[in-house]
């Protein structure tokens, strides 16, 4: 039985195992490789996407849960990389290796949607599940603050 999912505004009818993780669908079926595989256990945040606007770890989310819903990935955050967070990321040179950054930005986007001017405490508690082995946390926090005004 097909599963219908909207991804970045485009509807897809998928003939896949309903237990297939959303991340596999995004990367292997739809070719959206911006979202990364990190730990496979919802512990690192590299696979973070939005499901109906809420942050989910796509590596542990069965595609059946996304049926009839809207998925937003890093590719769909803005049509041309102009989201205030993406601009701030570039301006401050946030990434080092870059592997975790799509997940970082997707979590930060959800944070700014709810708290347009987040406090340091709000940034820390919302971003605590996105790990960065390069240790770019300081620049991530600065970029979120820089983007805060523009994300309103």
């Amino acid at each position, binding site marked *: 039985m097909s599963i219908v999912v909207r991804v970045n505004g485009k509807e897809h009818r998928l003939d896949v195992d309903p237990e297939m993780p959303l991340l596999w669908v995004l990367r292997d079926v739809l070719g959206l490789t911006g979202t990364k595989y990190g730990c*496979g*256990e*919802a*512990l690192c*945040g590299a696979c973070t996407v939005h499901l109906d606007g*809420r*942050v*989910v*770890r796509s*590596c*542990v*989310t*069965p595609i059946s*849960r996304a049926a009839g819903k809207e998925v937003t990935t890093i590719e769909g955050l803005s049509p041309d990389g102009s989201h205030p967070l993406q601009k701030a990321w570039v301006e401050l040179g946030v990434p080092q290796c870059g592997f975790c950054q799509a997940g970082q930005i997707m*979590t*930060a986007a*959800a*944070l700014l*949607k*709810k*708290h347009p001017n987040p406090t340091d405490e*709000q940034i820390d*508690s*919302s*971003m*605590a*599940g*996105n790990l960065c082995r390069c240790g770019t946390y300081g620049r991530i926090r600065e970029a979120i603050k820089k983007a805060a005004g523009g994300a309103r």
Partner: protein
Amino acid sequence: MTIRLTSERHRGESSFVTRSLAMRLGVAMVALSSLAWACNHAKRPAELPPVAKNQLRSVADFSVIADEEERSRALFLEASRVFLHPRCANCHPSGDVPLQGMDMRPHEPPVTRGPEGFGEVGMECGGCHQDRNLELARVPGAPSWHLAPREMGWVGKSPREICEQLKDPKRNGGKTLAQIVEHNMHDPLVAWGWRPGHDREPVPGTQQDFGALVAAWVETGAHCPTDGGKP
């Protein structure tokens, strides 16, 4: 002569004093052991059958306690083996951070309860926990995975304190005792405790046994254990 008589009299008095002391000591010991027996029986009646760590005593096992109030207290203590098990208590923390594992360590990743017990934006419970356990990723799950409100925290509390809390509508989500029974007997999130998935230790017994114990506790007057009462 006089000296000898006096000495004999003293020996006789000394023997009398010794016998009297021994009798008094004996009476005191009997009284003390009776008191100890009474105390032990108030907390955990000796007649209750032994039970395995992974099982619960049945409601019928408690019929040996004639006094209804005592029976009610004993039923609650048995049910508190479930309330206090890490599978249940980990999501009834007394602070803002859920716990995990049998050693009840802080949840990793470091989540907090958020405004309504479902986590903070970006770190919401449902971002990782699905409506069922994920065996491959080992992430536990059940419908509406979330933390109990802070006022329903159990960690660090005694069975008596938990009992008083459960009966207080201000600290039990405004529930009646009948609703408490229903919640314990049928709630799908409560049910997870018996089917925790992966290699996690389930809470003792079955949800049916547990619900029956809570129902029997309510039927017998919902009396709370005494201070220091332990399951």
